[in-house]
């Protein structure tokens, strides 16, 4: 049956076909494949697909579990992929696309995995394939960033694996369903930690802002959508109502803003803004009510669209100018008006301006905090909403397209890029005006009206006064050619320090050991075997020599003579035999000991 095929396999097969195709045919295939996969997902019937036998004592693997939650993520993942590949029409080489398809396929694999083993395999495949997407930019910086990226994800994968092993061995089941907060144990905490690494939670967040902006124009665009949102899916599925997630989400929402405000690189601003946005979703998982979960899915759906749109506009600028620092950019509105228009729509949508998709999705999460009377969570999320407008809504377009004219006169973005941005812009506005279609695919029915007079007024107050603050404080927000230290400092500087310490200590030990074992002790052993028997024999003969009345200096002379003869091997046969007996006795004693 065609509907029994997991969607991930379609993309893996597509990755193989992509290697065989050339030129325009490849580009068209790359756009058509995700569209077909989208249709395929829409045809999947709810429930569990065919099972695969695993190890004898375990349950069967379940690579295709379909419900509303997995379908909603499946739709947006494939939709986004189709538009991203349209944007990427300019890319000439297949390498990046092949790995991108494997990466997106692995993300779909996680989404539709019904058991922890399948999930883990796809999880690791995602980490590896995404590292290749980063490497595909083929710069030294990209390669170094990809190395750090994959190290962090291997660490996260190990946490996940350890958690899965503990959980499976204690519960006996490999099923991936929601874990009970009341029964939290080390195993479930480790699984949660593994998921949180990919969600870019505090302490584990630096991989995102470190690596994504080093990827290529298309690479960054594709990466921005999948790893963190797959993690959000696993949190919504596995850890709804786990209260610590509320705190983690709130911290992410605020930290993302702080760093985005300090940042100079436009794509790094967008990377930090992912952390801020995912914070809302992680927080919603922690709230755990049906409304919060539905709101998080709606937000993830709209977020992928407007965040891709923002990455595209930044990507188009990078493609045309080769620059991505705010300090090098400015005044591009003159020659890239369409890119500005579409990027602007993305910026308005991420800021949840009425008539855009952010307003009809993110506000569901905030409403969920109101219904559950979570005052502090509500306050932080409202503040974070205002902050989004500051850093992504205004700062990004302002410093790139307006601000000071730096004399750059790039051409407008290529047509395929503009089409891709146009489609996503349309979706941002359409979902902002007609959200019902989105609400219908959410895992739970939401009884939420975004467009009330009260909502409109309060949201406009929040946004307009945030904008006012931005322009009043503009002198303080002037960009400087700097970077900001993040958690990656610990392994970037710490890694170098670790290397030095290991170099000094281990190589020091090595030299010492070489000196003692190889240089000195072999010499000692050689000397021992040459002279020891004679020395010992001499020692044994001393009482005899004393007994026959020899003087001390005579005894010393005889002993020296004996040792000298032993060294030269010049002995009468009798003495040689005697020495051999002594030597055998030594070896025998050693062997006995």
């Amino acid at each position, binding site marked *: 049956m065609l509907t029994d095929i997991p969607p991930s396999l379609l993309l893996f097969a597509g990755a193989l076909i992509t290697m065989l195709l050339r030129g325009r045919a490849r580009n068209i295939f790359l756009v058509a494949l995700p569209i077909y996969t989208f249709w395929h997902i829409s045809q999947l019937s709810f429930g569990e697909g065919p099972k695969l036998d695993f190890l004898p004592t375990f349950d069967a693997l379940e690579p295709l579990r379909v419900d509303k939650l997995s379908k909603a993520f499946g739709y947006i993942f494939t939709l986004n992929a189709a538009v991203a590949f349209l944007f990427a029409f*300019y*890319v*000439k*080489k297949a390498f990046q696309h092949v790995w991108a398809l494997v990466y997106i396929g692995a993300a779909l694999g996680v989404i539709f995995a019904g058991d922890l083993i399948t999930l883990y395999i796809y999880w690791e495949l995602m980490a590896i394939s995404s590292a290749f997407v980063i490497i595909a*930019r*083929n*710069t*030294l*910086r990209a390669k170094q960033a990809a190395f750090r990226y994959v190290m962090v994800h291997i660490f996260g994968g190990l946490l996940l694996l350890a958690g899965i092993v503990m959980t499976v061995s204690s519960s006996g089941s490999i099923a991936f369903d929601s874990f009970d907060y009341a029964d939290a144990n080390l195993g479930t905490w480790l699984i949660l930690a593994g998921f949180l690494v990919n969600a870019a939670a505090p302490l584990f967040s630096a991989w995102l802002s470190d690596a994504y902006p080093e990827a*290529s*124009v*298309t690479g960054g665009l594709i990466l921005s959508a999948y790893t963190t949102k797959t993690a959000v899916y696993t949190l919504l599925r596995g850890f709804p109502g786990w209260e610590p997630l509320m705190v983690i989400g709130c911290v992410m929402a605020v930290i993302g*803003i*702080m*760093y985005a*405000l*300090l940042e100079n690189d436009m794509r790094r601003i967008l990377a930090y803004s992912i952390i801020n946005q995912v914070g809302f979703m992680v927080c919603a998982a922690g709230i755990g009510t049906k409304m919060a979960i539905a709101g998080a899915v709606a937000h993830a759906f709209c977020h992928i669209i407007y965040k891709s749109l923002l990455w595209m506009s930044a990507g188009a600028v990078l493609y*045309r100018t080769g620059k991505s620092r705010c300090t090098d950019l400015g*005044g591009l509105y*003159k020659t890239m008006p369409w890119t500005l228009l579409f990027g602007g729509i993305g910026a308005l949508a991420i800021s949840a301006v009425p008539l855009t998709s952010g307003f009809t999705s993110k506000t569901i999460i905030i409403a969920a905090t*109101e*219904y559950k*009377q979570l005052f502090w969570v*509500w306050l932080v999320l*409202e*503040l974070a909403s*205002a*902050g989004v407008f*500051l850093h992504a809504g205004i700062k990004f377009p302002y410093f790139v397209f*307006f601000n000071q*004219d730096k004399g750059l*006169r790039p051409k407008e973005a*290529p047509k395929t890029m503009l089409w891709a941005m146009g489609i996503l812009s349309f979706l941002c506005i359409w979902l902002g005006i007609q959200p019902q279609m989105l609400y219908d695919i959410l895992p739970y029915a939401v009884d939420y009206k975004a467009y009330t*007079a*009260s909502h409109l*007024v*309060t*949201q*406009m*107050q*929040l*946004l*307009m*006064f*945030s*904008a*006012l*603050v*931005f*322009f009043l*404080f503009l002198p*303080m927000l002037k960009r*400087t*050619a*700097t*970077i*900001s*230290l993040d958690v990656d400092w610990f392994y*970037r*500087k710490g890694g170098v320090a670790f290397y030095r310490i290991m170099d000094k200590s281990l190589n020091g030990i090595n030299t010492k050991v070489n000196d003692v074992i190889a240089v000195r002790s072999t010499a000692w052993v050689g000397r021992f075997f040459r002279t020891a028997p004679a020395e010992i024999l001499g020692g044994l003969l001393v009482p005899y020599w004393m007994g026959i009345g020899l003087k001390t200096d005579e005894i010393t002379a005889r002993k020296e003579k004996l040792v000298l003869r032993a060294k030269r091997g010049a002995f009468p046969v009798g003495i040689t035999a005697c020495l051999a007996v002594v030597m055998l006795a030594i070896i025998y004693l050693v062997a006995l000991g």
Partner: protein
Amino acid sequence: MAEQKKESDWFDRPSSRRLLWRLLWGACALSVVAELFVHRHPHFGIDGIFGFYALLGFIGCTAMILLAKGLGKWVKRGEDYYNDHIEDDVIPEDIDDGHAD
């Protein structure tokens, strides 16, 4: 690239900037005045205060900018901090070289 289109410099003109400033202040004022005409249903009490969201936006954003500024003193470094501010010999092929379109 033979003829350059006449490019707009509307946003660079001081007169436009003044206009935009007025529009911004106007939009702020309008959003507050509009609150007089809507029925609010606050959830926590404090959010029922007139103009609460305007205050939240203003104070919140000011606080965040100042906090970020403070954080910047602590974490900002030169671009060469990690010794990887290398301009590669490899030209990333996704940078338009002027011929592709």
